């Protein structure tokens, strides 16, 4: 009997033990994450510029996207940069190899086939495009643009789905997954689910994704520091919050979560919450968005089975040389490379004032749009990317 008890106890202890690089859920503090060393991959990499890809755009199209999407059409071998054009209410497919607009799907704004806007979407195939439009409706359209089905979030979800250029929604089977943030405060979000799902089959809405870290409780941060950024690796919703180096995985099938640390080498101190406020509105956006560091986005690269995490370094509120106010666009940005176990594989500091915030993971590598927002001389007749490829660092 004693032997059985001992065996059972041992089994219990073993099952509770976590592998060394993982941490237990959302309980670890921001300070705890900062103090923890990154797990390092044996091989280290950097991102090297491979080539520039310029694609002409017409007079009705911008040279950047508010929701950049990449689509790899395995049936034809063509790869596309896809952009929702709010001026034409269209979805535009730019062939990356021929550097041409190859397809423009136009949608009426109103009526039974109306969808507005068409700027946020997920392409499962050319015959299954999921468009997240107002008001809180997700449409599924076929290759001709005809609506096949739709599902709605309740009205209470207005302004709560945090999708954007650095956090794209995705669809698995017939269910769409979204980062969720109620724009309430980091304090109120603590412990609640950071994602929601919407079933296109039965319009069911539910929780999905890791819970907001408990260290948010009693603390206030600007929205960009607590809004979740997600990426999907085929099994897990991978989530990062601006204020922390923690990376959280949520397995969609099992609901299991894990916490990892993926700290930028440019993060020199814990990104602090703001004291002395009782609501988000009391925060000084100029200070929060400029001076403090920020984990800006995370993307999974399914071709190389790695992650890119984008980190922005805080800068002084006023430029010491010009005296002009600075903002988050003045922050230098680096790209942390991590393997599929979130082991640090290297980090590349991007050339300052050169790029725009459109990141696209393509078959060939990571593409980032050229043309910094503060550069007034960026050509507007083309969308221009720099293609970065992984290069092993040999010491």
């Amino acid at each position: 009997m004693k032997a059985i008890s001992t065996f059972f106890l041992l089994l219990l202890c073993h099952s509770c033990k976590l592998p060394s690089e993982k941490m237990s859920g959302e309980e670890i503090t921001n300070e705890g994450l900062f103090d923890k060393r990154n797990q390092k991959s044996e091989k280290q990499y950097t991102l090297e510029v491979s080539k520039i890809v310029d694609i002409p755009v017409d007079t009705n199209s911008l040279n950047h996207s508010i929701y950049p999407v990449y689509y790899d059409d395995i049936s034809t071998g063509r790869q596309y940069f896809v952009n929702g054009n709010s001026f034409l209410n269209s979805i535009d497919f730019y062939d990356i190899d021929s550097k041409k607009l190859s397809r423009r799907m136009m949608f009426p704004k109103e009526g039974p086939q109306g969808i507005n806007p068409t700027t946020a979407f997920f392409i499962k195939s050319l015959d299954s495009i999921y468009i997240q439009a107002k008001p809180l409706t997700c449409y599924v359209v076929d290759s001709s643009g005809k609506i096949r089905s739709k599902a709605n979030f309740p009205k209470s979800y207005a302004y709560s789905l945090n999708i954007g250029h650095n956090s794209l929604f995705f669809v698995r089977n017939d269910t769409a997954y979204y980062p969720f943030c109620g724009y309430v405060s980091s304090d109120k979000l603590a412990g609640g689910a950071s994602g929601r799902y919407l079933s296109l089959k039965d319009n069911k809405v539910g929780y999905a994704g890791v819970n907001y870290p408990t260290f948010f409780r009693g603390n206030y941060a600007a929205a960009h520091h607590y809004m979740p950024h997600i990426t999907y690796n085929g099994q897990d919703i991978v989530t990062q919050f601006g204020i922390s180096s923690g990376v959280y995985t949520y397995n969609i099938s099992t609901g299991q979560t894990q916490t990892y640390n993926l700290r930028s080498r440019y993060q020199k101190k814990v990104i602090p919450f703001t004291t002395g406020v009782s609501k988000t509105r009391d925060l000084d956006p100029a200070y929060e968005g400029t001076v403090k560091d920020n984990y800006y986005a995370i993307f999974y690269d399914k071709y190389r089975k790695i992650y890119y995490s984008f980190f922005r370094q805080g800068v002084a509120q006023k430029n010491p040389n010009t005296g002009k106010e600075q903002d988050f666009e003045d922050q230098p940005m680096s790209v942390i490379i991590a393997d599929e176990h979130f082991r640090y594989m290297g980090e590349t500091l991007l050339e300052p004032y050169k790029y725009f915030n459109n990141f696209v993971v393509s078959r060939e590598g990571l593409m980032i749009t050229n043309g910094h927002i503060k550069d007034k001389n960026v050509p507007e007749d083309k969308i221009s990317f720099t293609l970065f490829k992984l290069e092993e660092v040999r010491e």
Partner: protein
Amino acid sequence: MKNLYLIFFVFILTYACKEKKYQEELTKFRYFLAPDTTLPKVTLIIPLQGCSGCVHACLDFAKKYQSERHIKFIICNGSRKEINLKLKAFEINAAKISIDNDSYFQESGFIHTHPVLIYSKNNRIQEIRELVPDNINQSLAGIEKYLEDS
């Protein structure tokens, strides 16, 4: 009596602080408007880069109220092409709004990533409010009421 003095003192102090609070913003705002311009009752500064839902709500509002003489609309943080396309898409007459071509409001720290609403009275700024998702609908609805009341 002592209490009365105290209340009076606190009142004066509060008022003085409020005046001082917007002094820097007033100077910056006047610089853009030209010094001798009467401050509009309501100013809505709309940065095209940033919270896209907020920007769209403000552009919709501008489309509806572009001819209202007490509201000044200022569009900023966009390239020439982007501004033109947005104005066309929202059916806003370029002659009825101002465009901050030099990113003045951004570089002077007046705006960040959200639209900013300024209430003015008697050539003084009464309130500056950043429009974020949780207050934008209420704030835009409040403009109409403010104009009726003032």
